[in-house]
């Protein structure tokens, strides 16, 4: 009788030590797993940021203000955009990526419309939808005009429902 509690103690101690070690191993294992996952994510993520398309800002000079006649649409292929100069002299940089599923819209000069070849959405000069399936106006890029030079930030397309006056930029 007198020995039994001690016996139990004896039996419990190594057991709980073993338990503790087991838990410690498990915790270390989980920690290591998390670290490797984190390192893996960091690896993939940092790589993605370096790709040009993901760059937060990319200023592209498209020409001088005087190069663009009022009421004109000029394609600018390197930036995959159109420079639209409104009748009142305002500038819009319109993305050629269709708002439906992302095809490249073309400017049809005779009918003065942007037409998407993929599913025939069409848009007017300022990018508003004329016929669906496109759900909203074409994206625009921020325009900055400095010392008569027109620059477009092609890293930051801006989504919009429709054209509003405040989107145009003036020299």
């Amino acid at each position, binding site marked *: 009788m007198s020995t039994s509690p001690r016996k139990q103690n004896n039996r419990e101690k190594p057991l709980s030590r073993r338990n503790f070690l087991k838990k410690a191993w498990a915790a270390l294992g989980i920690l290591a797993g998390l670290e490797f996952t984190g390192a893996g994510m960091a690896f993939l993520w940092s790589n*993605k940021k370096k*790709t*040009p*398309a*993901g760059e937060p800002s990319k200023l592209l000079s498209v020409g001088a203000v005087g190069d663009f006649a009022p009421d004109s649409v000029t394609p600018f*292929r390197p930036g*995959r955009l159109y420079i639209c100069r409104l009748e009142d002299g305002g500038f819009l940089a319109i993305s*050629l*990526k*269709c708002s*439906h*599923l*992302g*095809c*490249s819209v*073309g400017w049809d000069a005779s009918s003065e419309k942007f037409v*998407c*070849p*993929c*599913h*025939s959405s069409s848009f007017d000069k300022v990018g508003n939808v004329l016929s*669906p*399936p496109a*759900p909203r106006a074409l994206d625009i890029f921020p325009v900055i005009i400095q010392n008569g030079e027109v620059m477009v930030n092609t890293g930051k*397309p801006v989504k919009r429902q429709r054209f509003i006056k405040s989107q145009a930029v003036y020299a």
Partner: protein
Amino acid sequence: MAELLDKSKQDSPADSQEQKFGLKSLVLHLHPRRVPQAVLKFTHTWGLGGMAALLIVVQFLTGLLLRFVYAPFPGKAYDSIIVLQNEVLFGQFVRNIHHWSAIFLLAITFLHLLRVFFTGAFHGPRQFNWIIGCSLLFIVVAANFTGYLLPWDQLAYWAITVSTGMLEYLPLFGTELREAVLGGTEVGAATLLIFYNLHTSILPLLLFLLMLLHFWRVRKAHGVMVPQNSGNEANNYVAVIPNLVVRELATALVLLAVVLTVSAVFNAPLQAKANPDFSPNPAKAPWYFQGFQELLLHFHPVFAVLVIPFTAILVMLAIPYLRYDAEPTGIWFISGKGRKMGSISAAIALILTPLAILLDEYVISPSAALAIFPGYIIKGVIPLSFLLIFIAALYYLSKKKFAATKNEAVQAVFIFILTGFLILTATSVGFRGEGMRLAWPW
């Protein structure tokens, strides 16, 4: 192979060594020694699972060869395909085999799913194997999709642009998800590298592991489902070698012959090199996604891209766990009654789906109602409610009218939805011409 099938040799002790290390033991890792005679009947499984496995091996082997020539960079990819086709001995042929096997594999995997569903092989001990199967189907689709981009021609570039464009309609995280998949804001160098990596290492690895798991679960369930009406043949066990193995070899050889013939006659398509500035008219998603593209023409994007596909996936995964009220029979379409109900619901879908497409194309979409009520009501909540009410009615009527079991009623609903989806896909593939307007294919 001959000695493998030779029965007389099987018993000679001199061969026991060969049996341990030879082909026989390989076969017996996949198969049990004996199977019920009933499952040998070709029209029970149509050998579809085995065909899928064979085509995956074909893809692995031809893919490995292609990797020696292919360069996953926008400036080089297209040219490397040209070199492959024009300068590499058998280059065009190997590309053709990879191309056609990919299409066969997708079709056959889908048919295998239908076989498993219609013979009720997803019940009981096979429930989880259905889930593994669904994952396999997902990976086969993903492999087809990532492979589609690799030739970097106009077809590839715009199909991937349009398909990933659908992701942008997901609310909240759609744009972010698309950019994560593409590695940028549009299809480019990062996209090609990501797709190439997925296609030639990650997906094949996953496919291989899941396939092992899938086969192991088939063994764990003591082989395939045995049809209830097979009487004696259910209890009459026969040796796998040669009975099952010759049948498998014959099926494999016929399938290989078909794939090789098709590859010798029809070249895999290759259009002009990808040009991000000019889209072709019309630009369609790969054929296996065109059902969804068609859905997008008729439903508000949130419904076409999020609500409907995710419900469909959940329903697929739930199929084995619906608490059925009857034991599976292992017979095609459950019973005579099940077959009849299935034909009726297929016929209904065959009539109603085209009508619904025409109704939307010529009445609802052009109507002024869209300008007044928001799109997600006219082209979302209302048509979806109609569809759900119809499905519920189909379910309860078939249960009442035919005094059907739950198994049979679920099957009728499944056939209805399946037929509808196939018609949507066929409409987009065959009947959508320039500007995605309805047109005759000829």
